[in-house]
């Protein structure tokens, strides 16, 4: 039985500088997998390697059994992988509706689009009210909800979220996580990158801890919450 996403021993570098070294990771179909680590640990680089925005220098990335290590970035979403990038990157001067429709760029079927729009509204109800507004007029939290909803519009099997709680007003974070849980409950596999480790581990089934480009710890999310290393490094809890 193979996992939906299988990353084996990949390395990623920028101009000679190593961002990832010998990283392996698995995501079972239907699971929520958290990838946590401090600033510069290489979390974003891993997502960028999966979506083809950077090339892995060695190792392989397999999705649903196929080697996708060298697939061009604009084809990745057609295979069923949606990447919600760090910093949201919504199309600011386009309306919320146009942003969502761009999320469904690869599938022009009007019926599919309507169904997915309804699913997106179910996860993030506020978007329905904002539909005709320009994305730039949304709050940071609403933009994050839009970015995630836009990612779901291609009906991906794997949804990758890069720091969905970064820079978001704390009172909006539970809303965002409620949406993520709703999406996962619908059967979408989620790869969740976070620095907000507590929130991520509570939402996840399994988790990986990255440190300076290497996986230093992995296992069930519930076990990792209790791990002294995690508690000390990320949760600010010092064992006594």
């Amino acid at each position, binding site marked *: 039985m193979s996992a939906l996403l299988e990353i084996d021993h990949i390395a990623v570098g920028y101009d000679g500088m190593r961002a990832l070294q010998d990283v392996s990771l698995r995501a079972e179909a239907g699971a929520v997998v958290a990838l946590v680590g401090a600033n510069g640990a290489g979390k974003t680089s891993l997502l960028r390697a999966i979506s083809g925005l950077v090339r892995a220098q060695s190792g392989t990335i397999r999705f649903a059994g196929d080697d996708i290590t060298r697939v061009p970035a*604009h084809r990745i*979403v057609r295979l069923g992988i949606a990447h919600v990038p760090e910093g949201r990157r919504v199309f*600011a001067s386009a309306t919320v509706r146009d942003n969502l429709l*761009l999320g469904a760029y690869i599938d022009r079927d009007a019926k599919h689009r309507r169904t997915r729009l309804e699913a997106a509204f179910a996860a993030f109800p506020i978007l329905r009210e904002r539909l005709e507004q320009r994305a730039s007029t949304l709050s940071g939290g609403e933009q994050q909800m839009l970015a995630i909803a836009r990612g779901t519009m291609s009906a991906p099997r794997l949804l990758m979220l890069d720091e969905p709680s970064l820079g978001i007003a704390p009172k909006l974070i539970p809303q965002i996580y409620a949406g993520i849980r709703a999406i996962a409950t619908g059967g979408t596999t989620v790869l969740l990158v976070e620095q907000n480790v507590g929130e991520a581990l509570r939402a996840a089934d399994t988790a990986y801890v990255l440190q300076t480009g290497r996986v230093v710890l992995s296992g069930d999310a519930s076990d990792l919450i209790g791990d002294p290393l995690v508690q000390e490094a990320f949760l600010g809890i010092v064992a006594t």
Partner: protein
Amino acid sequence: MEALTTFAQLLASGLLTGLVFALVAVGLTLVYGVMDVVNFAHGEFLMLAMYAALGLALVGIGPLLGLPLVAIALFLFGIVVYRLFVRRLLAGPPEATVFGTFGLLVLLQGIAQAVFSSDFLSAPRPPFQGTIRFAGLAVSQATVVEGIGALLLTAGLYAFVEYTETGRAMRAVAEDRIAATLMGIDVQRINGLAFGMGAACVGAAGALLMLSYPVYPTAGASFALTAFVVVALGGFGSIQGALVGALLVGMLEVFGGYYLSPELKMVPVFLAYLVVVLLRPQGLLGRR
């Protein structure tokens, strides 16, 4: 009363002139908006289109039938130029596109010089040479045809960008290439298409302009200069901005030519340009 008629006359002719400027400028602004490339050879594309329209006229194909043919030819030419040339420039440092497209300008002018010499050539017996009189105003048929044609095409381009699936993808690429890629948009394909459409705009403009202008190797350069002013006035990357800027420039030019002197017609244009650049550097309808 007579002053008023003169004013109305100038206004009409300024607006009609401006509409043709708009068609040239939207091509420039579309390419800039989508891929941040200022195509310095835009005027030379126009010049090629005028020679092409002239060639068609010589074999008996008039400007209106010739227009779609020249537009399609320039569209394909634009795509080839993008694939072979601009695409590589984009992979280099930002200045590469400036020097690269400027080099293309020099190259195309040189080729035209060698092939056609510097003679001024005009279409034989162009149609629409009459005058339209309306409410005391008199405008040449050719200017009216040019103006209306340019307006329809500019509006069509705007509608394409605003309301079609591919237009939406173009706006996405314009705003954020990486995010657009993550949506499954092939940025190279969209860039090529936008570059081709920018060239098609001057393709159509070239066919229209053959109604009233001669063609020679540097014929495109003066229109391109105006187009740069128009785009800077209206706001880089904005199609509506190009239309507003073009109408303004058309009127200033016509008024300047009449009330100052024909040699000084560009003075009010560049004054307006200076004022806008100083007070609103992003242009009248530009963002940021």
